């Protein structure tokens, strides 16, 4: 079946279940691939080959015993380093957690284990998921496999790059303002931010609790759906987890049909400020959807132009509160404890030494927005804008089944280009942020390369809360039509590393 590391997850799972290959062989092939290319890509912060091979061996034993296995059993995965995994280094890309080994598994990890998915290791990310380029990782940037001088997106650039470099066919991301979708967009891979509460946040190191959402990443829509189904569902350990059946995303990905579907083009997300090649591929994708039998109409969401402003007040506010726990007392880094310094001094020295520039920037911004005298003008106003954006979505979904836009305004930019220009960096998330503010689900999938730079362009599909299956129905149809046209998946055009 060719190089094992180039195969998609569903193909590998099937080959393992039918004993065509062993899970150990599949895992070893990916570990070898990581050894061969991760020196250039730096998608992984930590790989535990021994644990992965042991997990794979256990899958092979189950196959030999004739045990019925899940649809992804034995398939390797990269886990974003923001999710706690018992006994394995978990840093969230920060020096303040260097060397920390959680004493428990996050719910996502528990479910991955239960599904017999083999966890290869932890993937790189912007520190505490703050960023759109993975350059804010305290452990060095990840490089985009399409062009090693460019960013892989962020914050989950490690997970997306691992997929695009064929280091893993599956990955987990978390999405607070686009951290699954924007990396998918710039690496030619697929990523889904589920409806808020669809996947448990228990054991996810919190950035902004009312926005954070873990989700699946893969190279195909079907693989993404299979992973989505494996990790989703109610969890009593997360009080914001939705206690309702998970939409049948796998069936939707297999049905892949947009006939009769009403697709709304968000007027405010596109046009000015979007790269020409992004707009061109986006327009072509809309034509394809139309030719497949969808009705494409334009809708207006006038409050979206205020989403970025509201987000960059709400997120830092929640983050400044969540990150207060990193005080150097119970775990993580401690600096300045010389017997003379008092506890507040030690905390201040620890946080100064342990946090990077973007984290400090956002902590101070949030502290400011929440402080007495400014609360109403900033945080209070931002919460009202959140209401307006949610109303815009609700009104739009009365007219259409799904909404669409480009995922990101540009293709991957050069490493270093926007590193110390927070506003330019924040603008990458302009099309992905409204989804998080409203708590709905969205997907990014590749729709081609921009003619001017030959880099992947992402297409965003947004669905009402708890209708995540529609993402896969539309995404699956578009992917099938494009794959038909190209004769292969876009990712197969990625350069050799």
């Amino acid at each position, binding site marked *: 079946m060719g190089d094992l590391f180039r195969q998609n997850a569903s193909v590998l799972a099937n080959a393992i279940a039918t004993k065509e290959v062993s899970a150990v062989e599949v895992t070893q092939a990916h570990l070898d691939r990581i050894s061969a290319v991760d020196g250039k890509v730096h998608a992984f912060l930590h790989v535990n080959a021994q644990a992965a091979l042991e997990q794979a061996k256990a899958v092979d034993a189950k196959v030999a015993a004739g045990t019925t296995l899940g649809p992804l059993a034995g398939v390797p995965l990269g886990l974003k380093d923001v999710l706690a995994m018992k006994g394995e280094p978990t840093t969230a890309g920060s020096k303040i957690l260097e060397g*920390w080994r959680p*004493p*428990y598994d996050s719910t996502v990890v528990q479910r991955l284990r239960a599904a017999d998915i083999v966890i290869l290791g932890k993937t790189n990310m912007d520190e505490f998921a703050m960023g759109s380029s993975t350059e804010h990782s305290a452990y060095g940037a990840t490089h985009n496999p399409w062009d090693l001088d460019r960013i892989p997106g962020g914050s989950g650039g490690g997970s997306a790059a691992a997929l695009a470099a064929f280091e893993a066919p599956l990955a987990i991301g978390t999405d607070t303002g686009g951290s699954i979708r924007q990396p998918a967009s710039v690496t030619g891979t697929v990523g889904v931010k589920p409806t*808020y509460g669809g996947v448990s946040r228990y054991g996810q190191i919190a950035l902004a609790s*009312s926005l954070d959402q873990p989700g699946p990443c893969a190279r195909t829509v079907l693989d993404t759906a299979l992973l989505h189904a494996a990790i989703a569902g109610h969890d009593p350990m997360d*009080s*914001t987890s*939705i206690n309702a059946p998970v939409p049948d995303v796998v069936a939707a990905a297999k049905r892949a049909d947009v006939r009769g579907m009403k697709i709304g083009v968000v007027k405010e997300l596109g046009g000015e400020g979007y790269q020409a090649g992004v707009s061109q591929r986006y327009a072509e994708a809309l034509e394809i959807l139309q030719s497949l039998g969808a009705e494409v109409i334009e809708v207006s969401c006038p409050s979206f132009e*205020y989403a*970025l*402003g*509201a987000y*960059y*007040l709400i997120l830092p506010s929640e983050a*400044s509160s969540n990150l*207060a726990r990193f*005080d150097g*007392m*119970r*775990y*993580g*880094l*401690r600096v300045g*404890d010389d017997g003379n*310094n*008092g*506890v507040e*001094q*030690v905390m*201040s*020295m620890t*946080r*100064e030494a342990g*946090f990077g520039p973007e984290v*400090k*920037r956002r*902590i*101070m*911004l949030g*502290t*400011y927005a929440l*402080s007495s005298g400014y609360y109403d003008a*900033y945080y*209070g*106003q*931002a*919460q*009202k*804008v*959140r*209401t*307006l954006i*949610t109303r815009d979505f609700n009104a739009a979904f009365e007219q259409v089944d799904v909404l669409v836009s480009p995922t990101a305004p540009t293709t991957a930019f050069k490493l270093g280009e926007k590193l110390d220009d*927070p*506003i330019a960096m924040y603008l990458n998330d302009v099309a992905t942020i409204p989804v998080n*503010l*409203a*708590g*709905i689900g969205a997907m990014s999938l590749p729709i081609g390369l921009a003619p001017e730079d030959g880099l992947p362009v992402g297409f965003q599909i947004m669905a009402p*809360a708890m209708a995540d299956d529609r993402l896969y129905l539309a995404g699956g149809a578009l992917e099938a039509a494009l794959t038909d046209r190209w004769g292969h998946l876009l990712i197969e055009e990625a350069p050799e590393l």
Partner: protein
Amino acid sequence: MTSISRADVAHLGRLARLELTESELDHYSEQLDVILQSVARISEVAADDIPPMSHPIPMVNVFRDDVVKPSLTRQEALAAAPATEDDRFRVPRILDEE
């Protein structure tokens, strides 16, 4: 909306327990000012009659039964601590010497 000064940043650093350096004070006062200017537009749209939204899912008081479940052992809970003493977290002094 007000602009943010170097002294404001120093104050925020104290509130947020960040021992900022002199160059950080200069750098961040400039950047935070730019960021705040760019987000200030949100005050244009949100009228008084719009209710604030704190969370995407309207739910309150999610309860569970109050039953004892297995939890971390003392050893596990202390395993990652920077310093321990007598089976407890050891912390720097919390009172000023007077």
